């Protein structure tokens, strides 16, 4: 195909202009035109996140925050309640001589209690609040391509 000359190009002919004016006047007389409604927002993307995926990721992050809040407060609270109840029951039972603990059993009991407390603190601190953050808002390594 021949490349057209690279020069300033005027509008079309006066005849076209007159025809367009006539057509548009006729359109106006007939009660038209109708303004074009916009299409839906595009969602397909070559590389960037789509809106749906963003919303899904945000919902997932929201759920993650809720679970962290529940476990972050709930686990130490449940542990404290458990320790208080068990210790009160055990001490009361020992005082009332309903139970008879050997030294080895008492040491085992104290050790397991300490391990339990440290374990819960470690789990909460290390897995719920990792040092690098949850990276919830970062792109996956594999480039996405969504085509429906």
């Amino acid at each position: 195909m021949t490349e057209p000359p690279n020069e300033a190009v005027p509008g079309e002919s006066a005849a076209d202009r007159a025809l367009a004016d006539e057509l548009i006047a006729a359109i106006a007389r007939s009660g038209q035109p109708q303004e074009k409604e916009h299409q839906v927002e595009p969602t397909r993307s070559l590389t960037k996140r789509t809106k749906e995926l963003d919303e899904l990721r945000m919902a997932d992050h929201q759920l993650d925050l809720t679970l962290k809040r529940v476990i972050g407060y709930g686990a130490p609270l449940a542990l404290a309640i458990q320790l208080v109840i068990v210790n009160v029951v055990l001490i009361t039972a020992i005082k009332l001589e309903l139970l008879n603990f050997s030294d080895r059993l008492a040491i085992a009991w104290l050790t397991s209690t300490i391990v339990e407390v440290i374990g819960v603190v470690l789990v909460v601190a290390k897995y719920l609040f990792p040092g690098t953050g949850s990276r919830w808002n970062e792109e996956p390594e594999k480039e996405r391509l969504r085509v429906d």
Partner: protein
Amino acid sequence: MATPTLRERAQDEAARFLFTCWDEDQFPVDPFLIADSLEIDVFLANLPDDVAGIFRKKPNEKPEIYIAQGDIERRQRFTCAHELGHYAHLKLEGKLEHNSDETFIERRDPASSLGTNPAEVFANEFAANLLMPAVAIRTLHARGMDAYDLSRFFDVSPTSMDYRLKNLGLPR
């Protein structure tokens, strides 16, 4: 440096419009939203059978685009992009002042698409690059999408996509 050809200038302008009026990475491109962002009024109207669209800028008025309401959506999208091409061309030539009086009628005759009138060549090249950017086409084509998949992705007719692939030297 060599002076850019008319087609190259149309390609540059389409890229600039996408950069300034659109998210370059979102598809399909909506020429109606781009027209809206440029404060161009777009109307659907009953036009004669041989007319697909009209671009008109009257003195002291906003530019207007009229599109044949009987056309299918994809055709209307292309017509709108084509008329935006006329707007871009006039703007590039410094002919779109407040008191400008410019009119273009897009007819359906084969001569319109053959590329003899420079204004029409610019508008056609602009429309193709606006709706089907070369970089995006090449990226998706390299990933194995054929002409049909690409036409769905960019919401253009398979014929337009065939023509675009041919122009880019890519197999269908």
